[in-house]
């Protein structure tokens, strides 16, 4: 039976996550101003909080299913602006390893932090335009090419790199390779300076005749399709997007939620509060705006939960993942903007953290595919057009 209530234990977990995030806010402005620094793996305050894992064990079979609950966790964490008190191992590359790696590969690199490196200066959302190459030379792959926007690209221990083994094959020729930091020919070009998400280290790489063992091809040699076999592997990689898009959307929704909550609290202190029963004509403009902000944020959150819930049920969620990402991309922009509208000029001051929501949130309509890319995906699906027919 359709339900949107949250169990006591889940509420407890979410409350702790919020408390942890709030505790980290004392460091936020510092790292805003010191982007060149990498935050410590652990802050002292981390000891005040039991591990989320231990709390998760209390969850029962009757609770909100796993992927769906994960979305709530991401939203809740993103709704605060605190730095991470204790960094856990793992990056986006670890997800790819988990999804596409052989058992041996998982054992070998599973404990490390792996970044994911796809984007190139000439290929953003257009992954089939990837120019980086990998050629097999004896028992080694030789990687060449430039990569940008590598999340956790500075502090990771290795990276999963997309490169083509056969340009003529298009998407089918694109493979993933694991490259360890320190491998000769693997250069970190720079750490990017960004509008927001400044505790997330973003790197630009260049690979120059970078040689890695043949076994570092993710999925092993099996993943290279025989002629005429199609691009099963590439689709496998794309398939992981079905959870990453909702996850990134959840991050954007979380920023919207956080900005809204910040705004609600600050206005309450100055006597402005929504009366949920008041007649529309008796509401102030600010009260009405708060209602619209909450409705938009809630709606986006529900599309995220829907996409994840379908995954929990083992049902296809490709369209729903893009719906959630497009809605999340909308609210991560509009809601922090509107929060600042309601808070006026003081909201731009560094005395307050609310302005960070706008800057941090803005990324959610860009990475993992812009809102434009999501709308293309949705439209292709509902119209029955291929990516060649509608581009």
């Amino acid at each position, binding site marked *: *039976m*359709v339900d949107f*209530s949250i169990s006591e234990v889940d509420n407890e977990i979410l409350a702790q996550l919020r408390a942890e995030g709030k505790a980290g806010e004392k460091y936020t402005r510092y790292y805003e101003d010191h982007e060149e620094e990498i935050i410590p793996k652990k802050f002292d305050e981390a000891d005040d909080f039991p591990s989320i894992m231990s709390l998760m064990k209390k969850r029962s079979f009757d609770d909100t299913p796993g992927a769906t609950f994960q979305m709530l966790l991401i939203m809740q964490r993103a709704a605060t602006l605190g730095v991470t008190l204790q960094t856990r191992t793992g990056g986006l590359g670890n997800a790819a390893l988990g999804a596409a790696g052989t058992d041996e590969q998982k054992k070998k690199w599973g404990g490390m932090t792996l970044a994911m490196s796809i984007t190139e200066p000439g290929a953003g959302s257009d992954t089939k335009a990837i120019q980086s190459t990998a050629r097999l030379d004896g028992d080694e792959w030789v990687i060449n090419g430039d990569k940008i926007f590598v999340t956790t690209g500075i502090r990771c221990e290795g990276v999963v790199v997309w490169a083509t083994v056969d340009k003529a094959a298009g998407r089918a020729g694109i493979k993933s390779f694991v490259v360890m930091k320190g491998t000769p020919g693997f250069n970190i070009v720079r750490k990017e300076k960004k509008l927001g998400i400044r505790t997330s280290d973003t790197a630009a790489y260049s690979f120059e005749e970078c040689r890695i063992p043949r076994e570092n091809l993710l999925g092993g040699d099996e993943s290279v399709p025989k002629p005429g076999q199609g691009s099963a592997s590439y689709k496998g990689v794309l398939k992981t997007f079905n959870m990453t898009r909702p996850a990134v959307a959840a991050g954007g929704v979380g920023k919207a939620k956080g900005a809204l909550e910040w705004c609600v609290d600050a206005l309450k202190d100055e006597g402005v509060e929504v009366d949920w029963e008041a007649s529309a004509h008796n509401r102030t403009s600010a009260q009405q705006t708060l*209602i619209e902000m909450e*409705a938009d944020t809630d709606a986006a959150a*529900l*599309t995220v939960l*829907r996409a994840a819930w379908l995954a929990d049920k083992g049902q296809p969620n490709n369209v729903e993942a893009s719906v959630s990402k497009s809605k999340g991309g909308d609210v991560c922009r509009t809601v922090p903007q509107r929060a600042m509208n309601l808070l006026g000029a003081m909201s731009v001051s560094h005395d307050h953290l609310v302005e960070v929501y706008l800057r941090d949130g803005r990324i959610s309509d860009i990475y993992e595919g812009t809102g434009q890319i999501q709308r293309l995906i949705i439209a292709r699906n509902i119209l029955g057009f291929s990516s060649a027919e*509608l581009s």
Partner: protein
Amino acid sequence: MITFELTEEQQLISDMLTSFARDEMAPKARDIDEASEIPQDILTAGWDLGLVSATIPEALGGSGGERSPITSAIILEKLGYGCASIATSIMAPSLFVQPIVDFGTDDQQSEYLSLFTGDYHAASMALQEPHFTFDVVDMKTTAEKNGDSWVINGVKRLVPLGTTASHFLVIARTGKDKGLANIDAFIVPRDAKGLTIENESGTQGLKPVATSSLTFDSVEVPAKDRLGGDAGIDGRRLINTVRLGGAALALGVARAATDFAIPYARDRVAFGEPIGKKQSIAFMLSDMHSDCEAMRWMLWKAASQLENGDDATKATTLAKDCINRLALRVADNALQVFGGHGYIRELPLEMWLRNARTLTLLEGPVAV
């Protein structure tokens, strides 16, 4: 726990009404709107689905089904998808029936509910008032206690099925305080003394659904006909069911417009290719689809709170705000996809725009 899972029964009803909307309602919708009249056969066919009597106790001749706002939301979305005017004609009696199921005393239930377990029977709710800034928390219609009766004064407008309803559930203020908690409802027969019923001039949308204005000039209602008896009602719950009812129909209209626009955009050729291959059209359709999804979950979230017995006032306000904005936008953009053809009363686009516009302004005209 969070789940979007329908019960088996809900899935069955949903499938049945999907077919009914597509095969029986939608093909007639355009003509019905143009004629401003609903043929008896479709009304009978819709009524015979037993949706209004579903939650009436078996002892009173109903099906004794569980009262489920989620199920109602699903039903109304599907019916709105087929034709909001037919849906309103079939389901407006729910504005009378569901509150009696929810709040009626045993006597009220046995006296009134059996009216709806046979052939089509019209009843309605009188809620809207004549001024533009009307809001249900701030009504002008009052009911004052006078001995063993209540005396109602005021004017109600846009009462759906007002021309045929045998009874009205009249919403009035019994105290001085504003707010949903202070709302009361009274069962009033159409021949009540002091009640003047007049046909209205028509409305932009839901054109075939005749509305009436009801003027209450010291209409005396016996105490037994105050809904819920001495206990009265949960005003918030009543209004939330009404608000979500209209929202569910509006969602259905938006989804119908979207589903109609998609194949057109796929097939209609302009400038040498299907217009759906133009990103401006494709993105419009994409947003229409996303909006329909978002609206449905917001509707379900509020309905599930009603279902759980919680106060759903906030969730209902949010769902209504969301659906009021998005359903109108979706219908308006669907028309735009068709350009000039959407403006002509041959295709249903302009009808959907009027219906969406109307449903997103009304409280009601049905209840979940």
